[in-house]
């Protein structure tokens, strides 16, 4: 139940939404497409779910060609588009029952698969979908996408606009689904979620920056990274950016992630420079790169 994507390109007028994309997702894998809005994630999802035709290249899902066997794919996959596409004027239960019916099944038949998720929203089953919170809509949309026991699940930005608690719960659910043998392709603009996937593809402006396991991607980061802090963050950013040897300066939570152009960089030298510029409580410490560091490093090139 794998996904092969072979040199897919798609453009809208002059804009290259996807530029020669190749990805191979193994059966049972939880694969993440990581990139900001406009990177081409949604276009790729629509091509794989047979909603759009690629300009060039080919792809197959669960062994079926996305063009020739589009009907077979439509029976096999579960798809959750961006904006939780639910009928706002139908209740939770009516939405679920409707999607079960059009796939020729019933809620009872596949209840096992969705039980974990659905029990959380079941107390609200008579509430209209439009009146649910973002987290509950997300769970309902996932239940609807799962109700026909799909072999491959496509989730387009399922956690966008959802608070961290719901996001965490959502990823825990995905892990359990994966354990049941479902292949999952999920996209997200949140870099911190990348670590939860088996493998990820970093994507920006329709191009793949890198494909690997989250761990390997972090290890590939070419330079030592330092956490830098001081009493005034704004001044610190300004001074770091003005430093002649700087390679990159990015705020990262409490600290600034700093990399130097030189190979034999001495943190003491930077400390002296910052002190000289009037900064106090200077803190400089070696730290590990994150996926976001790698993404930005690759995107800069």
């Amino acid at each position, binding site marked *: 139940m794998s996904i092969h994507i072979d040199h897919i390109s798609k453009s809208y007028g002059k804009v290259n939404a996807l530029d020669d994309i190749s990805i191979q997702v193994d059966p049972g894998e939880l694969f993440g497409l990581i990139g900001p*809005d406009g990177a081409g994630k949604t276009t790729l999802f629509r091509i794989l779910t047979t909603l759009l035709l690629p300009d060039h290249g080919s792809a197959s899902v669960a062994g079926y060609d996305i063009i020739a066997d589009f009907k077979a794919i439509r029976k096999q996959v579960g798809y959750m588009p961006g904006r939780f596409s639910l009928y706002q004027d139908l209740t939770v239960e009516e939405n679920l029952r409707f999607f079960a019916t059009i796939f020729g099944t019933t809620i009872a038949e596949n209840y096992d698969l969705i039980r974990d998720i659905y029990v959380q929203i079941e107390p609200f089953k008579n509430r209209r979908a439009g009146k649910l919170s973002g987290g509950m809509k997300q769970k309902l949309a996932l239940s609807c996408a799962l109700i026909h026991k799909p072999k491959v699940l496509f989730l387009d930005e399922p956690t966008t606009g959802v608070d*961290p608690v719901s996001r965490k719960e959502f990823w825990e659910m995905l892990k359990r689904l994966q354990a049941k043998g479902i292949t999952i392709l999920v996209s997200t603009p949140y870099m911190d979620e990348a670590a939860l996937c088996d493998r990820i593809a970093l994507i920006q402006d329709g191009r793949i920056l890198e494909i690997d396991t989250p761990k390997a991607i972090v290890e590939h980061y070419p330079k030592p990274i330092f956490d830098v802090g001081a009493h005034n963050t704004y001044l610190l950013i300004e001074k770091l950016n003005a430093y002649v040897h700087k390679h990159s300066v990015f*705020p990262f939570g*409490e600290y600034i992630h700093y990399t130097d152009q030189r190979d034999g960089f001495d943190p003491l030298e930077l400390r002296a420079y910052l002190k000289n510029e009037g900064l106090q409580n200077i803190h400089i410490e070696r730290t590990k790169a994150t996926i976001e560091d790698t993404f930005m490093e690759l995107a800069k090139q």
Partner: protein
Amino acid sequence: MKEETVIKVEGLTKVFGDFTAVNKISFHVRKGEIFGFLGANGAGKTTAMKMLIGISSPSSGSANVAGFDVYTQTEDIKKSIGYMSQKFALYDDLTVKENIRFFGGIYGLSKNRISQKSNLLIEELGLEKVAHSLVGSLPLGWKQKIAFSVSLLHDPKIVFLDEPTGGVDPITRRQFWEMIYKAANNGTTIFVTTHYMDEAEYCDRVSIMVDGNIEALDTPKNLKTHFGSDSMNDVFLKLARS
């Protein structure tokens, strides 16, 4: 040094029918502060924000924004604040310059002032090439940066930002925050909501709402110490799950 308070909220409450969306919240925000306003979906953030910007009337309690009362002086509040949200920021079918002119006009800026400001803004953001392009044709990150600048056009005392960086790429997101730092450094107060927990760390102080109440309010550092966590994400999860 006596610090000026620009937002004063005491026991602010909003009730919809038998549902209390915002339950007696109280906090102060100082001038030039970056104040992070966090909370899960449905915790009451948006409702509270709507009361502060004068588009929703509180059920009880008091609040004073930029020196004006949220019950009686909403028009004055609207003149002294800037507002930008993820959902609506600029008109996609107007050019960058037309948007600036339009929003400048709304806030009653003179023609000279608008053209002066818009030239400055375009130069600062390096938008010379796209000044006459439709906003809809620009990448999301650019739009959000322009929208933020536009919300500062009339030199508001406070800017309210509702999830300004949702979906924006990581580099642009940081550039956006550098703009926020800069505005705060110039004395503008920033009131911001976000779902990115690393962004919470950029704030001077952070409040976390759970079910209509403010459950925590402190500097990110103190919050992390208090909850024994190494990140704001962890603080948030601990609070929201308890």
